[in-house]
């Protein structure tokens, strides 16, 4: 049955366009998505999912379950980097271990969005607060990662931690701001029909179509990055997959304990199991300059992301269906 889900997922347009992009890179095609457009498409996706999330929040009446979910989700973003760091620093220099830890503590917006479109195709509902969860989970891991790098690493010259800098990079980077901002706007304008006035632009076919084109680009880029991994060795390759599964299962467990819906459970699994490749690398590049981006970017973008969108999402959902039906 989980095989069915995986095959069905494989036959969904977004995944197939991702694979088309991978194929294009592997056969050395000259296909490329213009850089500025790619950045705009990712802005659009954050705008769309955030706006919708805010609207859905305004719909859903407030419940303790929501608070628990948001709290637990945020907690994972604080805690996950700790054990990732503990494991990785055995093999890697402190800065690299800390950077990768931050990457896996944070979230992958596109994995989340792909999961959302997966739920839609399975016509399963989910709560708007999950988008709030994503927004809350992006930043803490960055702070923790940087602190780990500072505490365990040798003092940088001018070693004082520049908290305002760090805060800005963690909480005010472009991705977080657009996601949070759009969500708040969606929430604030829900009454006056804000969402209603843009939903055909920010949802439905437009959203699905842009996701296809963006995943085409993700495929082009991810396949390029995989090459970088040749050097990085087996341990890290294994880590990128195992971390995804283990963290996803942790997410499922939390959702189960909270007693949230199957849809929310899948989204939490993708948030906890995902790794950031835009927001965190951008922040870490500034805050942990000694860390080598050719490690943390390829791991999250070249391995964890493809694994999650192709196999992870349906796999996690199969597990969830089992657990939720049994209970």
């Amino acid at each position: 049955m989980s095989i069915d889900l995986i095959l069905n997922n494989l036959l969904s347009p977004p995944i197939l366009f991702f694979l088309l992009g991978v194929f294009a890179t592997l056969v050395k095609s000259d296909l490329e998505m213009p850089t500025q457009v790619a950045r705009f498409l990712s802005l659009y996706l954050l705008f769309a999912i955030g706006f919708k999330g805010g609207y859905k929040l305004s719909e859903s009446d407030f419940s303790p379950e929501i608070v628990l979910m948001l709290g637990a989700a945020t907690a994972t973003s604080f805690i996950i980097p700790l054990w990732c760091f503990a494991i990785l620093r055995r093999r890697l220099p402190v800065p690299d271990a800390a950077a990768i830890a931050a990457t896996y503590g944070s979230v992958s917006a596109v994995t989340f969005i792909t999961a959302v479109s997966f739920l839609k195709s399975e016509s399963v509902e989910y709560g708007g607060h999950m988008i709030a969860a994503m927004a809350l989970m992006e930043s803490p891991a960055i702070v923790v990662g940087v602190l780990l790098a500072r505490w365990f690493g040798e003092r940088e010259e001018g070693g004082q931690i520049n908290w305002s800098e760090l805060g800005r990079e963690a909480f005010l980077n472009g991705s977080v701001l657009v996601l949070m901002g759009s969500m708040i706007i969606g929430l604030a304008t829900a009454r006056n029909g804000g969402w209603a006035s843009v939903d055909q632009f920010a949802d439905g076919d437009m959203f699905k179509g842009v996701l296809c084109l963006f995943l085409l680009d993700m495929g082009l880029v991810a396949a390029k990055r995989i090459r970088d991994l040749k050097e990085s060795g087996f341990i890290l390759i294994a880590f990128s997959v195992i971390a995804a599964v283990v963290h996803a299962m942790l997410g499922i467990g939390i959702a189960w304990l909270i007693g949230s819906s199957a849809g929310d459970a899948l989204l939490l699994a993708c948030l906890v199991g995902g790794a950031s490749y835009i927001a965190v690398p951008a922040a870490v590049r500034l805050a942990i300059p000694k860390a080598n981006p050719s490690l943390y970017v390829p791991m999250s973008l070249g391995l964890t992301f493809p694994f999650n969108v192709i196999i992870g999402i349906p796999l996690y959902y199969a597990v969830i269906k089992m657990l939720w039906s049994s209970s």
Partner: protein
Amino acid sequence: MKDVKRIELVIDAAHTPELIKVIRASGATGFTVVRDVQGSGDRGDRMGDELGNVFRNCYIIVAAGETIAEKLIYDARPLLERYGGMCLVSNASWIKH
């Protein structure tokens, strides 16, 4: 015609603002920035990662008199040491207008 030093730097897009602060502080009368250039060096290829600005460089040109140039190079060094990058210096004459 005035003899000047032509300083050209390549640095991570992410660290460009810091470098520009240094340039302004050095007393240079101006600078030119070419954004989003690609390249390769000790830290491997940086061919412009379409999804973030982690693998992107900026190319910066500064024309300045000898003394200011020396100060600028001296002040920029720590940045280049920490973040990598390139710094070339050559001679040129500035056409006054």
